[in-house]
């Protein structure tokens, strides 16, 4: 496994970039565009994906992520731009001549074929000899731990099993790139979490370059080496999960991934002043209008030792989530979101006054 | 590449085939309409000149006009009767579980698959035995019987597509059963009832296979009149009368297109 170790933000950003230079590029998308009339489903999409990398296209529905994936697989013809797989320009090739393996959202298992026949299907099309084919099918079914169900038909499998068959079927061809289209959306919440972990292990084991599409930020953060956040057909930000979460490049990314407090205001001489007059130190930030982004972890109820300036606020809402309580706090006309665990009986209620302090390391700014 | 060529060949063959199928399907009707405007004395294609004289002849021909009236009357009455009988049948098939349900469904749809000659002969014999032979009643019975499957099929499809939760929602909003029927169920089922009615009408109006056994001699329908005429002589008045049949059919079908769309009935 030549994957980036998940360590602090700055370091992993560096190593991801270093990896980008050294590793072989498997998928290269250059200035990809897909237009339907005047509407651009995907635009200005340029991306390199390296060998062994797991890249996620993340965004709300209609952002163009699925269209991009389908263009790579060849089901949608790009309006302009180029797609290269393993150095070969495949932009004009039909899907069946592209070296991709896709797991569809609905799995798309052939209902009239057994599990075994489903996995063998692609190998037959490649003209692989029967004995070799048989071995490969067995190997794949062992990989997904389904060899005991080889004779079953898709209808007789659970959702999770069907997904593993789809995966085995796609991997059997040893494609250059594995494409996953919302692979967990058809499963219930508990199964989703379990299969997510299984999938990560499995992909790690075969070390295959993978692109997957999701609208679930948690899934993206947990699985990916790199996340491409998309919005309105374009790329909003590319980065490691830590990077995307800790250093959102735009207001959209800050709001779409995780929770945050947003304060409108301006910076002058290293100090941010919110519209209502709240001031927060902003060393190094250039002067001008901007938005202050604060993740809830960097805000906490004031306690004995002061971390920085304290702000007194009024609890607007207090929602109990078990392991933590999510509190909306208004300070003047600004509002803050904080998440904290309170010992039983000490949880603030709506209307209580609460003092909070901000960890200066967590303060980020994006363009207003 | 070989595979690419095979794909292309498939695409081109498919295109040509589809085009010729659509042309062939429309061909007989188009030919009839065009040749009805001939100015000549005999049926030929392409026709000679243009005139409406064969329409004049058709309108002035008593046998054709009488049988047109019989056909229209028959189609209207059998449509109404067929709907009256088919609606409860479809409703029962949709809302009730009962023993022999599938048998009942098969029975209700079977007039479609029993060969018409067989059904026609059976009814002819039965009507003779009842003493109803060659009456409007025997024609009507035959037509209700053969239009019933269209009605039952279209309506059960309509009932099946109907989301029963809408009725539950209405009841939850304090609607009485009568209000539910009037404001929810009937308006939503109207398109299928219209489709069913239209299909019953055109099936009855155009029918020849059963009418030919039941309507000989006495009152006869327009298709039977055309059939007997075509057996003996062959002139452009037939094209004019046939065009009238086409026009009636198209008009009625236009209704179904307007209200519910063709997709509803298949």
């Amino acid at each position, binding site marked *: 496994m030549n994957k980036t170790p998940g360590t602090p933000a700055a370091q992993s950003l560096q190593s991801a970039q270093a990896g980008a230079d050294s590793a072989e590029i498997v998928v290269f998308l250059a200035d990809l565009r897909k237009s339907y009339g005047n509407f651009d489903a995907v635009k200005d999409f340029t991306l390199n994906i390296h060998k062994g990398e797991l890249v996620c296209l993340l965004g709300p529905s209609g952002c163009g992520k699925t269209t991009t994936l389908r263009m790579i697989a060849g089901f949608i013809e790009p309006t302009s731009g180029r797609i290269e797989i393993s150095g070969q320009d495949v932009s004009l090739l039909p899907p069946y001549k592209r070296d991709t393996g896709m797991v569809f959202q609905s799995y798309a298992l052939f209902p009239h074929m057994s599990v075994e026949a489903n996995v063998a299907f692609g190998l037959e099309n490649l003209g692989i000899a029967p004995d070799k084919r048989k071995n490969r099918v067995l190997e794949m079914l062992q990989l997904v731990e389904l060899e005991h169900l080889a004779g079953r038909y898709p209808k007789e499998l659970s959702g999770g099993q069907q997904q593993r068959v789809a995966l085995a079927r*796609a991997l059997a061809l040893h494609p250059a790139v594995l494409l996953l289209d919302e692979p967990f959306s058809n499963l219930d919440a508990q199964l989703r979490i379990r299969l997510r972990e299984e999938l990560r292990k499995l992909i790690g084991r075969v070390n295959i370059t993978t692109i997957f599409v999701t609208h679930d930020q948690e899934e993206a953060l947990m699985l990916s080496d790199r996340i491409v956040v998309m919005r309105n057909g374009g790329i909003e930000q590319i980065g490691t999960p830590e990077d995307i979460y800790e250093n959102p490049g735009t207001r959209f990314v800050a709001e779409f991934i995780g929770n945050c407090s947003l304060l409108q205001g301006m910076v002058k001489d290293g100090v941010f002043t919110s519209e209502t007059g709240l001031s927060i130190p902003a060393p190094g930030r250039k002067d001008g209008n901007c938005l202050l982004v604060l993740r809830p972890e960097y805000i906490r109820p004031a306690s004995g030792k002061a971390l920085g300036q304290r702000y007194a606020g009024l609890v607007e809402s207090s929602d109990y989530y078990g392991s933590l309580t999510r509190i909306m706090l208004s300070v003047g006309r600004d509002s803050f979101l904080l998440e904290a665990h309170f010992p039983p009986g000490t949880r603030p209620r709506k209307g209580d006054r609460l003092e909070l302090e901000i960890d200066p390391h967590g303060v980020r700014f994006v363009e207003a | 590449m070989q595979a690419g060529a*095979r794909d292309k060949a498939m695409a081109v063959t498919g295109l040509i085939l589809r085009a010729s199928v659509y042309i062939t399907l429309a061909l*007989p009707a188009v030919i009839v309409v065009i*040749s009805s405007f001939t100015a000549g004395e005999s049926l030929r294609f392409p026709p000679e000149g243009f005139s409406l004289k064969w329409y004049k002849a058709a309108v002035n021909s008593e046998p054709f006009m009488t049988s047109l009236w019989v056909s229209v009357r028959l189609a209207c009455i059998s449509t109404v009767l067929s709907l009256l009988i088919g609606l409860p049948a479809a409703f029962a098939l949709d809302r009730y579980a009962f023993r022999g349900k599938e048998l009942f469904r098969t029975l209700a749809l079977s007039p479609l698959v029993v060969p018409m000659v067989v059904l026609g*002969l059976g009814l002819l014999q039965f009507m003779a035995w009842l003493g109803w032979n060659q009456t409007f009643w025997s024609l009507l019975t035959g037509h209700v019987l053969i239009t019933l499957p269209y009605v*039952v099929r279209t309506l059960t499809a309509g009932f099946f597509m109907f989301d029963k939760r809408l009725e539950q929602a209405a009841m939850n909003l304090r609607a009485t059963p009568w209000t539910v029927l009037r404001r929810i169920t009937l308006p939503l089922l109207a398109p299928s009832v219209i489709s069913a009615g239209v299909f019953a009408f055109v099936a009855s109006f155009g029918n020849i296979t059963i009418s030919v056994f039941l309507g000989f001699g006495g009152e006869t329908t327009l298709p039977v009149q055309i059939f007997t005429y075509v057996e003996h002589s062959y002139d452009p008045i*037939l094209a004019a009368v046939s065009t009238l049949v086409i026009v009636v059919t198209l008009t009625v079908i236009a209704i179904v297109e307007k209200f519910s769309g063709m997709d509803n009935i298949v």
Partner: protein
Amino acid sequence: MAGSRTKLALLLAPPLLLLVTFMLLPLLGLFRSSFFVGSGPIASGFSFEQYAKFLLDEYYLGVLAETIGIGLSSAVLSVLIGYPVGYSLARLPAEKRRRRLILVILPMTLSLVVVVFGWLVALGRNGLLNSILMGLGVIDSPGRFLFNRAAVLLVLVQQYLPFMILSVMSGVAQIDPVLEQAAANLRADRFTTFRRVILPLSIPGILSGFTLVFILSVSAFITPKLIGGSRVQMIGSLIYEQVLTVLNWPFSAAMSFVLLTLTLGLTALANTLLAVRFTADQGKKHASRRA
């Protein structure tokens, strides 16, 4: 509970009354009269002479063979021609499909005599086909295109093709188009995708269309009578003549039951095939044996 029973009885009574009185009873009566002795509309007695007359006579057996031959050819041709059309309809966007469907459904709604009459004009001495061929200089004098087996077959296929198209269309519509993409992703070209994925999954639609077209074709009597004339005798036109011209009702009744047996036989065969295929395909037995 008693109320709902009564309601159900009231709902079922009218259709049952109609179907039993005017379909089952007449068919039963017909069955009974197929065993009558004699050859007029009024006959009685019990014998197998009508069936014997049909089944032991070379001419009638020839007509039966001709009927089955035309029925099978018509059904096979309809599959070959109708499949691509039905498939493409199923895969069209809804708006386009709606427009094309009108073209498919209209011929079904039009009176059979009008359609047959149109073909008489198209294929007749002074008809479209002769005009075209003479215009092109292929032939010098009008050819005879009516009153042969090919003409009957052409007209039957044109009439019943819409049933096949609709049957295939509704079958294919149930096949998830994503399966085709999955096949393409697994390196299958369009032809392989068709052969290995689409065709096997559309067998039910094809089979039901095939059965319907066969039944309709072997039961035809207007078309063979007008298009085939005396040259092409099918069992339907034979029955028609025996009923209305010769007035030999008992013999017609016997022939009717030969025809009915033929159509019911094929329907049963198709259903059995479908049932066998389905259990084999879904692997129910297979899997339960393994488990």
